[in-house]
């Protein structure tokens, strides 16, 4: 759905986006993660034909961003970093303007649909200036979707929102995913990306890596399980040494932290061995590193490599 090849953007001497290669599949929620100033907004602007690439190429729904800007704009919706509403105009009027610019056939139906979906119908005649940040963000989302775009670019959709408003927006994005739209989600909120995205690209002017959140964790930290025991005598850890596929066993208080390749396959062998050695097993669980850990680890790793 979105493909970039060595996509590069320079502003004078500064390289904002450096040889970016991406392939976003149809219907997926693609997370584009990076720190502030990493070039996420610049990338979105290139993909929505707001600015042109310095070199490289990008295609959106098979259309080249350089030669098919108008067609791309018709099938994409963008939620910019700030809502950018016409503050003196009502919510309804804001949407009417964009419905007309996208030349949609049934504007009033669409406006009502999205204002109701986002809980703004009762405030439709109120000026946007009177709205809370969360309401403004919801109105901006409605504006981005009014023409039912195939691809939606969301640039920091929950930044500066309170937790309740952020949750509402996240739930709405999850709903969009079920509708089968392709969503390109720019964020530096790792928890948000973890919850919403099928795949994630870690980006800092250049692409660090792309994968599913689970694979990213596995690649960076490997997979680990934690076994909670009533007691943890030394022989229990020793009894597991012979099981192939186990990389490391670390006893911590009444727990065993085991690094392994394929928990689904090896866990039954481990449990059986522990039971045979009279262990009282209380809980077994997978140790999940946060995406933040993965992100920081990768950023540090790449920085060290560059040095």
């Amino acid at each position: 759905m979105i493909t970039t090849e060595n996509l590069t953007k320079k502003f004078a001497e500064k390289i904002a986006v450096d040889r970016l290669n991406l392939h976003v599949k149809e219907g997926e929620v693609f997370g584009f993660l990076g720190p502030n100033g990493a070039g996420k907004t610049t990338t979105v602007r290139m993909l929505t034909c707001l600015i042109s690439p310095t070199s490289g190429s990008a295609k959106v729904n098979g259309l080249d961003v350089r030669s098919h800007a108008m067609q791309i704009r018709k099938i994409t919706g963008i939620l910019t970093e700030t809502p950018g509403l016409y503050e003196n105009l009502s919510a309804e009027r804001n949407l009417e303007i964009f419905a007309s610019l996208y030349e949609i056939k049934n504007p009033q139906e669409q406006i009502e649909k999205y204002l109701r979906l986002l809980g703004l119908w009762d405030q439709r005649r109120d000026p946007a200036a009177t709205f809370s940040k969360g309401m403004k963000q919801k109105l901006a989302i409605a504006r981005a979707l009014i023409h039912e775009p195939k691809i939606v670019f969301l640039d920091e959709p929950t930044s500066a929102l309170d937790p309740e408003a952020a949750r509402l927006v996240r739930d709405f994005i999850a709903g969009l995913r079920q509708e089968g739209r392709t969503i390109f989600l720019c964020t530096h909120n790792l928890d948000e990306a973890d919850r919403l995205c099928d795949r994630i690209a870690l980006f800092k002017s250049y692409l660090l890596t792309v994968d599913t959140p689970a694979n990213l964790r596995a690649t960076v930290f490997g997979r680990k399980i934690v076994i909670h025991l009533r007691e943890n005598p030394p022989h229990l850890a020793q009894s597991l040494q012979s099981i192939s596929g186990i990389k490391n066993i670390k006893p911590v208080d009444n727990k065993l932290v085991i690094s392994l390749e394929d928990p689904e396959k090896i866990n039954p062998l481990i449990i059986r061995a522990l039971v045979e050695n009279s262990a009282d097993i209380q809980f077994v669980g997978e140790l999940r590193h946060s995406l933040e850990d993965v992100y920081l680890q990768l950023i540090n790793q790449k920085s060290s490599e560059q040095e």
Partner: protein
Amino acid sequence: MKKVITIIRKEWSEVFINRMVVMTIIFMPLLFTALPLIILYTTRNAGMSEYSSDMPAQLMKLCPQELTGGECFQVYLVNQFIILFMMMPLIIPVNIAAYSIVGEKTQRSLEPLLATPITTVELLLGKNLAAVIPAVLATWVSFIIFAIGVVILAQNSHVASALLDSKWLLAIFIASPLMAVLSVNFSLMVSSRVNDPRVAEQLSTVVILPLLALFFGQIAGLIFINKMVILLMIGLLVFLDIVAIYLAVHLFQRETILTRWKSI
């Protein structure tokens, strides 16, 4: 054309909420219409015709023969203020147009707008017409009210004909829209380059200076506005409008506006 109309309607919805703009559109035409009519009214029975023999020969040459010296002086006085009508299409749209692009920038609404399938020409045409139409309508309506006033207040049909002669009709109905287009495109150029609507507004008023020079030049007797001057002005305006439209479109660089403008 539908997108152009959408932009015009959007601009009007936003701009006419601003009391300053509404006041400018209402107050200025009222004042500029009232001034020459007051002068016409107050001078019609001033007995100036008694002094016709004292009128300078140069002044008398400028008036139709059927006017007395006093009537000629009355026409001369009122004529000084008719030129104010030509200031309306310059001043009124500046308020609208200067706010046009910078206002979008300060609200940060330009990026979502530019992400829609609208061309630069459609966008600028919409913004142009949104500023030009109210200015031209205000000018024309004011002049029509003035013309009615002249017919009612003028001592005789000779005075009325002299005041509503073809040079002023050309100036108001042909030159004024051209002036409005020049003013708007100059304002759009300025507002594409600056960040603050106030700066845009102040810089845009520069376009009024040539007309002020004409106004004071006429009062000082340095320039006499006749039909030929107006026709030359129309020719010059057509040329300047073409240049201004070309520059406004070319200076409106989407990428530069989005990436180099700093938020206020």
